[in-house]
């Protein structure tokens, strides 16, 4: 059940080959979208060239860890990618990472690959996410989640 799809492996090899050529193109330019959190950081969670070549492997590995084994807060998580790489427009609103000219689309558009991730995953940071996720400390839990006094179970 855990095994990844053979076909996806091939696909990934193919993607990697394609991306390699894209990497050459972008080699000199440290591409991050202006106005994203990533633009203010020195590097991604791994060196840029590693990320460029392997991010899809990292993500695919992580997805099984999270969905099947329930391990959260992985180093390589798609929501982190989005949180960090989504740019904001003049009004301060986040722009979808898969929009024209935005972080994901810039490369994927060039190599004509459409990332299927965003058919299900959101493309902007989740403003509500601080509720229970990895992104927050959990001190808030004492407040809102606690049980009102007087609840009787039986």
């Amino acid at each position, binding site marked *: 059940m855990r095994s990844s799809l053979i076909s996806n492996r091939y696909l990934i090899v193919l993607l990697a080959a394609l991306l390699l050529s894209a990497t050459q193109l972008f080699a000199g330019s440290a591409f991050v979208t202006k106005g994203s959190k990533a633009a203010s950081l020195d590097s991604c969670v791994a060196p840029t060239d590693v990320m460029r070549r392997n991010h899809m492997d990292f993500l695919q590995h992580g997805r099984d860890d999270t*969905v*099947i084994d*329930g391990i959260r807060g992985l180093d390589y998580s798609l929501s982190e990618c989005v949180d960090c790489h989504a740019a904001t427009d003049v009004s301060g609103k986040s722009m979808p990472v898969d929009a024209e000219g935005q972080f994901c689309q810039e490369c994927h558009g060039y190599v004509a690959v459409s990332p299927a991730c965003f058919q299900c995953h959101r493309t902007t940071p989740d403003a509500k996410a601080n509720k*229970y996720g*990895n992104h927050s400390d959990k001190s808030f839990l004492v407040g809102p989640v606690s049980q*009102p*006094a007087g*609840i009787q*179970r039986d």
Partner: protein
Amino acid sequence: MSKKSDQPSMDRRQFIGGTVAAAGAVTIAPGVILHAVAGSNEQTEGASSEHRWGMVIDANKCADGCSACVDACNNEHELTDLGRPETDAAWIRTVKLKDKQTGNISRLPVMCQHCEHPPCVDVCPTNASFKRVDGVVLVDRHRCIGCRYCMMACPYKARSFIHEALTDQSVYAPRGKGCVESCTLCVHRIDEGVMQTACQEACDKAGHGAILFGDLKDPNSEISQVLKKYNSVQIRGDLELNTGVRYRNL
């Protein structure tokens, strides 16, 4: 008897294991226990077969006209109401029943019952429907091909098919067109050690306290105690699916 049972038991070994596990848990507020408290951005330990998560629902406490649990679930997982009830997703719903003989009225929320022997998992051709080691039944949307066979097989009508393209999903419930989904028992909370589902939280806040979530394998957990003390039933218990969701006063 080859069927393994996850039924709560006071088995000695489990009891000791349970106490040890409980020692690692932190009570933050009454009713809220954080297992395996992880700091910000730390990797969590993942699902463990030492637990089996489940719920017990008290039909007597489910208040007429209330929709707190349904609203909370929709909000938690960003299940948007598109005004098309036939195709809109419903992970949890309330049902009002009348006994044909006695006329007695009861009301209860129904969601995925997190069966120990889930028919949806048996029929899924691609292993997209699966049961986690801690008993939570999920759909891996990376594998689901949208055949809807699981929806045909589920005895509780617990599943919804996503009939349209979506945006702005919750980061905790990625979901998209063409896949099937159902109640996740708020697995994102479980994984973070938050021992309260969104529906229970809302029901408690509304002052009804009809829903109790917890660990069926831990004999000391509140849910195990309640189940031990009071009579409870499974919906369609005749199917012997050993559901993780039980009902009282039904």
